[in-house]
């Protein structure tokens, strides 16, 4: 079963790229991924560019309209994600809790709809 862990953080509270705090955070993410690999779980994940780089589009009556910015402007923004393939919600929550940003921001865990063919 696939679960998407959506990482929400407040950019103004996040360490500046290249700062010692940032180095520490990167180290923590690397250690976490090591642990995921050691446990043998299937996962993938990425960090996203800030929400200021987002573009939101809507298509109505075949007409595309493009808007600068994220779908919703909030203090906490989507900063990255992990996709886990694990047996159940408890396992997903256990790994999501290892995401370093969960200690400062929030991580929303959503089950992915599965279609059997």
């Amino acid at each position, binding site marked *: *079963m696939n679960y998407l862990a959506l990482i929400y953080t407040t950019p103004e509270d996040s360490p500046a790229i290249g700062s010692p705090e940032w180095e520490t955070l990167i180290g923590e993410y690397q250690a976490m991924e090591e642990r995921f690999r050691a446990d043998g779980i299937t996962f993938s994940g990425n960090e996203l560019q800030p929400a200021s780089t987002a573009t939101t589009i809507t298509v109505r009556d075949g007409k595309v309209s493009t808007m600068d910015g994220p779908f919703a402007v909030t203090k906490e923004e989507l900063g990255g994600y992990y996709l886990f393939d694990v*047996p*159940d*919600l*408890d396992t997903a*929550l*256990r790994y999501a809790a290892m995401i370093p940003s969960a200690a400062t921001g929030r991580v929303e865990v*959503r*089950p992915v*709809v599965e*279609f*059997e063919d």
Partner: protein
Amino acid sequence: MLAALIRQLDDFALAEDALQDAVESALVHWGRNGLPEAPAGWLLRTAQRKAIDRLRRNRRFADRAQDLTLILAAEETPMEDAVDALELPDDRLRLIFTCCHPALAPKTRIALTLRTLGGLSTAEIARAFLDEDAAMAQRLVRARQKISAARIPYEVPGPADWPARLQSVLDVVYLIFNEGYAASSGATALRQGLCDEALQLATLLRDLQPAEPEIEGLLALLTLTRARMPARDPARFVPLSEQDRTHWDRAQIDDGSALVETALRRGRPGPYQLQAAISALHCAGNSHDDTDWTQIALLYDALVAFDANPVIALNRAVALSYAKGAEVGLQALLPLAGVLGNYRGYHAAEADLRRRLEQTAAARDAYERAINAPGNDVDTRFLRQRLAALPGARP
């Protein structure tokens, strides 16, 4: 039976629907042909077939229907034995942990536990919460959908998750009891029912998971609190100091006190054990004055260290006022004004302490704040009486 079905089918919502289908067809068949030899076995077998029918109708799960047919055929046993063999104690324990999973909202956990394990109807639960039936039904439907869709496991948690998950289960049972006991609103008969449901659930937990001190602590706490209920009057609030202690249930008090001692001797104290120990001391006193308030205040110190809940700090302040005087109690109480400003109990406690300190004007002010805070009518009447009894009060 539901617990056994959930384990077999590995799907909470499907098991509930299938059992419902089976009950419906029982009404038809049994009405026509009379009761079968083993009604429980008949129901279970029928529910299994209904589950397979439901899966077949849903093409996405056609493969699972195939699997289940094979599994159930392999498990073919005489009907009389089917239920006993399937109803393992572990099934009900799993069910409690699933219903009280922290991924569900606290109110949903309570409702789902009452519906699934307590056997209350959706309408009864809605009444207990003063919700519309439809809103409560909707809440339960969403919960079942989430359990299935997010695959909340139907399992007793392992050692790593055990303490937090057990806490969630104990809190649900405690809240069910408290909803009945504190009677924030609603009819009395139903509230009494909630207390008894909670006691049964705590007893079930203790039987399923013996030698777990916090479970014993919770069961002891509920037993001791229940023992003192006959001295209460549904129509008016009777403070502990004025209760007729001959109305307390001595047998229950002995049971509860023995249980909390057993729990504490295991050397793993926790908040429910401490609250039960406090309750046991209240029950041991022959009168309000005769109560060991010093020991109670010490237990509250320990409890505050476990749980920073300001209501516990409030109770600690009241205990201190009897152990060391009203002034000491008031000094411990006043810092809580900020966090408990909307809580009636805070203003009532402040009013009582100021009354005892003969600060009449300040007491009157606090009683008025307490009366204006949200709460039930019985308590409002009690507070008005206290206010009227202050020296120099207007009639």
